[in-house]
């Protein structure tokens, strides 16, 4: 009796593994909970693990904010970028960093400031081991505000670098 239950569990695990290899992450059918307290749960497959990691990477914050007139990567951005670097090394073939500035001051100087910020993020990623030839930086200066408005809240949200990983 125990032997056939074990066989049943084995067959269902194999079936579960096949269904997890499809492109979408679908939950493999859970084996029926057995009354035996000694039964082991199914190990996550390599594909499931990768899918979970990709999901975590996708969920990372990809916008990093800066102080006025500054291009220094702030501590919370550093933490996000350290995690992002690992994701890029595992899953990405190209990264585009878009630098921005708030509306104050002259437009072309703000283009340069946006670029400085994008470069600062690029340099941080490279320090974490990301291949620099994979990274493209573009500045939009003050041309693409995330938030309209002439106040501190809007300005703070516009001083940013956005990361797009492919």
């Amino acid at each position, binding site marked *: 009796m125990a032997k056939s239950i074990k066989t049943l569990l084995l067959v269902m695990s194999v079936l579960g593994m096949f269904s997890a290899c499809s492109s979408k992450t679908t939950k493999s059918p859970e084996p029926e909970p057995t009354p035996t307290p000694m039964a082991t749960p199914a190990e996550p497959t390599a594909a499931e693990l990768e899918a979970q990691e990709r999901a975590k990477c996708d969920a990372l914050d990809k916008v990093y904010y800066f102080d006025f007139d500054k291009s220094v990567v702030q501590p919370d951005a550093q933490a996000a970028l350290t995690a992002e670097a690992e994701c890029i090394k595992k899953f990405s073939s190209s990264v585009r960093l878009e630098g921005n500035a708030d509306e104050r001051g002259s*437009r072309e*100087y703000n283009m340069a400031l946006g*670029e400085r910020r994008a470069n600062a993020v690029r340099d941080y990623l490279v320090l974490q081991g990301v291949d620099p030839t994979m990274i493209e930086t*573009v*500045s939009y200066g003050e041309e*693409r505000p995330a938030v309209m408005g*002439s106040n501190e809240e809007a300005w703070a949200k516009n001083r940013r670098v956005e990361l797009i990983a492919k």
Partner: protein
Amino acid sequence: MKYCLSLVFVLFCFVCRSASAGLTIEITQGSDEPTPIAIAPFAGASPALPEDVRDIISEDLKRSGLFRSIPQRDMLSSPSKEDEIFYRDWRVLGASYLVIGRMTQDANGYALEYELYDVLAQKNIFRKLTRGSATSLRDIAHAAADQIFESITNIRGIFSTKIIYVEDLRRDGPGRYRLMEADADGAREKVLFASSQPILSPSWSNNGRQVAYVSFETSRPAIYRMDLATGTREQLTNFRGLNGAPSWSPDDSKLAFVLSKDGNPEIYILDLYTKRLTRVTNSPLAIDTEPNWTPDGKSLIFTSDRGGAPQIYQIGLATGRVERLTFDGDYNARPRVTADGKSLVMVHRENGIFHIAWQDIATGRRRILTETWLDESPTLAPNGAMLLYATQYNNKGVLAAVSLDAGVKYRLPSKAGDVREPAWSPFLRN
């Protein structure tokens, strides 16, 4: 049609005479002691004409800040010939000058004969004639306003000049960003180029025939130039990093601009005939940008933060010698030199507020010109008497103008969207 754009390499562009959009003018401050001038209605100017020539002349002179135009309803007589002038009628209104005229129409278009009189001296100053085609009544009016203005003030008039600027319709789509051209009074607005991606830094060539600007249509900034007569566009740069702030040399043979291809923003010059690129500045840790040629073609003035924060510098093109020009305020940028090379206007921050300021280059004497804030992109009229710039009003980007003696101020909002980055044309040959 003159501005028909039909080019293979243009991704987003269309011909448009904007019917619903357009700049309007709101005068926010008048001059203290304007000279009173009376413009009598012109004989032969039928109300059926598409433009009121007399009214356009009157508005031009008022907008300069130097004149007050006697309202038509106050006038006691309407002379159109010298022997019809009764000087007392004009003295009682306080007019210092009187303009009379006659409009005629022939197969070729219209002609305006107009005469300027000194009311107190009771004598004729000039008699002139200006002609135009049927579609150029506004040009006739502006030409007359220029002559009247220059005769009285000895300053060349700018009423026949034009402006270009960027408009952002604030909604995504193929025509969101537009490079626009209009008359100096905001009339006859037309779209030169439209794109779904940002456009910035438009710049007139000194012969008035071309415009250079930055476009993001390739998903990165690149510098283009456009011939205004044909609409032909040419992409001039395609470097990685910044391609920005194009500025024409006095003889239009070269463009100075900023590139960051060598690691950080530096200023380069492109010879438009040989296509040879020369690097001008060399400050590895700094941002050098926003170059502007001096009228003698021997130096560039530019913005640099090599001293820690943006300030304005001058570099001699033959010597490479760099000199700092601004020392007041913690932010000075986007310089534009006056036509005589003696002063400049710039974006200047004081107490956290961005104004437009004027500075005498030799003495360093400085004056703040604007009372608005978040001011940017100053551009000078070719006679040096008016300044146009971009600012915010009612949460919209608008253009604003101020006379250099800061006497008159007016605003040019657009009905369509945000307007910004104005560039005033040179004197145009018609």
